[in-house]
Each structure stands twice: as structure tokens, then as C-alpha cells.
């Protein structure tokens, strides 16, 4: 372990210790089983969103719009689950919404040639207003959707948790060991290398952006959905926001 790591870890421990010293209530809370459960459930959206971000990163696409995908994903998941009375269809709805945002992002960035960073920031803005607008338009209320079906509180019975576990094993293997992953990494590193071998015709991350980038938002969306439907009985927009952060 490098000195930098030790330094960083030490600083983190010191900050946590100081916080506990100031607020003893916190320290007692951390030791409870409920806290561990909550930690796991909270981690799921981070895991899924981070995996999605990691995939696009390897493909050379800076995905600043993860936030937008989470927000729209959460909205779509809640709306579909509410409309169909099925949490599973909600999952699908969330994933599809994430992919739809990715399609919009790719259309702007690749077809029109817009700056990836600006597109990402714009989509986040769009999602901030857009989800509220849609909530307002569909449910007549800008902050929360009505309660919708979820997966309950038992973590091990929650399919989203399992999706997160499988994804964290599967994604690294897919990136390192499959044809898809190899081309993905090549696209992110040297797009013209793909041109030189005849996989792509033009040196831009189009190939990479096609499938993988569309998948990351799907994961992101699922993650958000899980937070908003599984862990909390009400699909709260606020929850969606917090899980995306």
C-alpha cells in the first residue's frame, strides 16, 4: 500500500471518528442490523450507476448524463409500475427510459456532433424540469408520484439487489474477456484503430456508443427504480434525486 493510500485512509478514518465523537447518536446507529441493510440497499443504485458509467468511460464516452438517466428512469419505473401494477414491468420501464435518454444523447453527440459534456449537462437540466413536468402532467403533482408496487423490504428477496450483484461480476468479465468488451476498449482508446482494422468506418466512438452506452443508462435507470420502488413504499421523486447523487 502506497503512502498516499495510507494518508488518504487515515484522513477518512479521522473524519469519521471526529464525526462520531461530535455526534455519539450516529455511532450507535451504525452498529445496528437495520443500518447494514440500509447500507446495502443504498449501495445498489451506486453500484449500477457506477458500472454504467464505467462502461461508457471505457468506450471513450463521458457520461455526464447519468443523473438524467437516473431521474427519468425513476420516473418511468414509478409510472409504469403504477399503471401496470407490476414492479417487474416497472424495472423494464426504467431501463427503457434510460436507454431512450441515451439514444437522445447519442443522437446529439454523434449524429449532430455536439459536445458530449454540454449534452450531458443539458440532459441533466432537462431531466430536472422534465420529470417534474411529467409528474405534474400525469399525476397533477410536481414532487411525488402516487404509491406504486415495489419489492418489499427483504433485501435477499429483492431482484434488484441480485441484478446489482450479477452485474458487478458480469460487467468486468464482459469488458475484459469478450469480443464486445475488446472492441469497446479499442473504441475508447484509439477509435482509429477500429477504422484501421475495418470494424468502423470513421474514427469516432460511434461503435462504442451504440450498444454499451445504451446499456449503462439502462442499468442506471434500474438502479434508480430500485431505490424508489423497492426500498420505499412511495415512489418519491426526492428519493430518486438523492439516489442519483
Amino acid at each position, binding site marked *: 500500500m502506497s503512502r*498516499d493510500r495510507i494518508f488518504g485512509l487515515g484522513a477518512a478514518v479521522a473524519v469519521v471518528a471526529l464525526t462520531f465523537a461530535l455526534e455519539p447518536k450516529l455511532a450507535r446507529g451504525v452498529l445496528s442490523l437495520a443500518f447494514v441493510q440500509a447500507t446495502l440497499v443504498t449501495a445498489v443504485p451506486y453500484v449500477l450507476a457506477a458500472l454504467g458509467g464505467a462502461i461508457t468511460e471505457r468506450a471513450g464516452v463521458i457520461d455526464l448524463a447519468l443523473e438524467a438517466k437516473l431521474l427519468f428512469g425513476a420516473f418511468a419505473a414509478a409510472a409504469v409500475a403504477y399503471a401496470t401494477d407490476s414492479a417487474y414491468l416497472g424495472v423494464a420501464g426504467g431501463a427503457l427510459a434510460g436507454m431512450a435518454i441515451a439514444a437522445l444523447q447519442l443522437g*446529439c453527440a454523434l449524429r*449532430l*456532433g*455536439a*459536445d458530449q*459534456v*454540454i*449534452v450531458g*449537462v*443539458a*440532459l*441533466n*437540466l*432537462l*431531466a*430536472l*424540469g*422534465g420529470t*417534474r*413536468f411529467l*409528474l*405534474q*402532467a400525469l399525476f397533477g403533482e*410536481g414532487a411525488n408520484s402516487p404509491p406504486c408496487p415495489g419489492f418489499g423490504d427483504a433485501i435477499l428477496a429483492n431482484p434488484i439487489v441480485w441484478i446489482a450483484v450479477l452485474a458487478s461480476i458480469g460487467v468486468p468479465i464482459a469488458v475484459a474477456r469478450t469480443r464486445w468488451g475488446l472492441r469497446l476498449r479499442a473504441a475508447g482508446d484509439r477509435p482509429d484503430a477500429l477504422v484501421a482494422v475495418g470494424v468502423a468506418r470513421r474514427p469516432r466512438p460511434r461503435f462504442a456508443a451504440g450498444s454499451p452506452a445504451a446499456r449503462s443508462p439502462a442499468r442506471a435507470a434500474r438502479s434508480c427504480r430500485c431505490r424508489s420502488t423497492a426500498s420505499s413504499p412511495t415512489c418519491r421523486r426526492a428519493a430518486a434525486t438523492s439516489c442519483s*447523487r
Partner: protein
Amino acid sequence: MKRELQAAAIAVLASLAVGSVLMLVVGVSPVRVWGTMVERTFTDEYNLGQMLFAATSLALCGLAVALALEAGLFNIGAEGQLAAGVLACSTLGAALPAGTPAPIAIPVCLAAAAGAGGLVAGGVGLLKATRGAHEVISSIMLNFVVAGVSLWLGNELLFVGGATTGAPIAPGAELPHLGLGGSSVNAALAITLAAAAAVWWLRDRTTWGEAWRAVGRDPAAARSAGISVERVQVLAMTASGALAGLAAANLVMGYKHAFEDGLGRNTGFLGISAALLGRSHPAGVIIAALLLGFLQAGGLAVAELVPKELTEMLQGVVVLAVAASVPFVARARARAPKEAA
């Protein structure tokens, strides 16, 4: 220049179109909404003032992000630097004796706002320069730290009377309102214009600006040519944070006159759009801030016709449309001579 204007025209038309479709979806006449929005914003002094007030904060945050961007740093933490500015400016303003004259109180509070923002961002720059910590990560994390500290201090010390508002600042520290129908626009607008001019001058006319841009374009080349990349990073981040912190002057000294939790929330993020939309040029940032300010104030002015969420959403649409139309225009022009030949 012509190209930028063409791109802007296309973007505005595209945003109008998207907005109109959304209005049709919710069942109101787009012509009526747009007409009313323009009419109410530009004929009603109050609404015009509110637009300028919103644009003031956005422009300062936009300038902050743009300045850092020139040095190759993505200051995504303008939000937290603004919050630090709010905290410092309002706390110090409230601590000043009530009789403090304006010539002392105003500079002190401005310095507190800029200093607090600069301190937070300077820390980010220092971490980047000395430890190689990525500025996006550290500045976004500091957003949460500042927000947390702000709320905690508020709860522990600052909030008065069960509200989420602190004690009022000394009257001498208040920035004068510009009138305009009782709107919130105030002398911070002039400070903002001066700041924009200063940023432009620094950027285009001094060796500092040249060094910043050299580091932004290629740190290795800058270092090899004898420019201290680390010093530039710390200075640029500090200056950027100071600009974001100054936005607190508009909010605290010109508007709320007290500490309030969450004052100016999201302004820092919208400032990123203003910087990107304005293509990092100070004049562009001002124009972009005015456009975003128009959507904010205009949206509220037509709130009884369309939900305000719609106009919030339009801000994103505008940024997206501008981003997409700039390369579109560039390509169309590159194609044109070939077709003529």
C-alpha cells in the same frame, strides 16, 4: 461570429418548437404562452427586473466555470463555492455592528463572499496541483460538504425563531435595489458586469490569461515553456471560486439580507450551462445568463398558463439545442463551397 449567431438562431427556433409541442400536449396555445412570456417580461418592470436578478447570479457562476475551463479545469463545484459565499457573507454581515457605514460594510461582505468561495475552490486547486486529485471529484464532493456544514451551522448557531433563516445583515451591507417595479435586481448587476470585463481583460490581455489558456490547452507544453502549471491551477481555481462566491452578494446583500439554508440552490449547476452556452467567453456567458434568466423569470410570469416545470425543462432544451446546432452550422458551411463548385 456570424456562425455563432446562426447557431443561436437555429437553437432558439428548435427550443421554441420543442416548447410549443409540450404546450400543445398540456393543452394550451403556444402562441399565447410565448407572446405572454415575452410581453410580460419585457413590458413589466418587475418581471424584467426578476430576469436580470436571476441572470446576475447565473452570470457570476457562469464566469466562474468559464474561467476555470480556460485553464483546463472543470469546476463543477460552483454550487458549493456559492453556498460557502452565502454562509460567509451573511454570517459576517450579521456580525457587523448595525451602524457600520456602507463604504466599509459592502467591501467587507463582498470580500467575505469571494474569499469563502475562493478558499473552497482554491483547496480543490491545491489538491489537484499537489496530490493530483481530480477537480471534478473533489469539487463535487465539496458541494456536499459545504451544504452539510451550512445546514449544521444553521441548526446549531444561525437560524433564528424556528425558521431556516438567520439574523439580518447590517443595513450598511445591503446593496441598493435598482427599482424596476420592486423587483430584486440590485447593484450586484453592476458588480457582475465589472467582473465580466475584468475576466475578459485578464483572459485576453495579460500574461496570466495566456498562462491559464496554455495550461488549459496543453499542460506539458506550458510546463516545458516555463509556466508553473501547479500555480496556474491553484490561482485559476481560486479566482473561479471567488467569482462563484460573489454570486452570494447578489443573493444575500442584494436580496435576502440574511442567511438562509439552500439560498441559490442549483444556481451553480445552471452556471455550468451558462458557461458552456456562452462558449467560455465572458460576453457569451453574459448573453447566455440573460437567456436562462429570461426562461426562469418568464416561466414564473406565465405560471398560470403553463406549469413552471415546463419552463424549467426548456432551459435544458435550449442548452441542448445550442450544443447541437453549433457543429450543425459548421458542417453546413463546410459543405456549401463544395456544392457550389
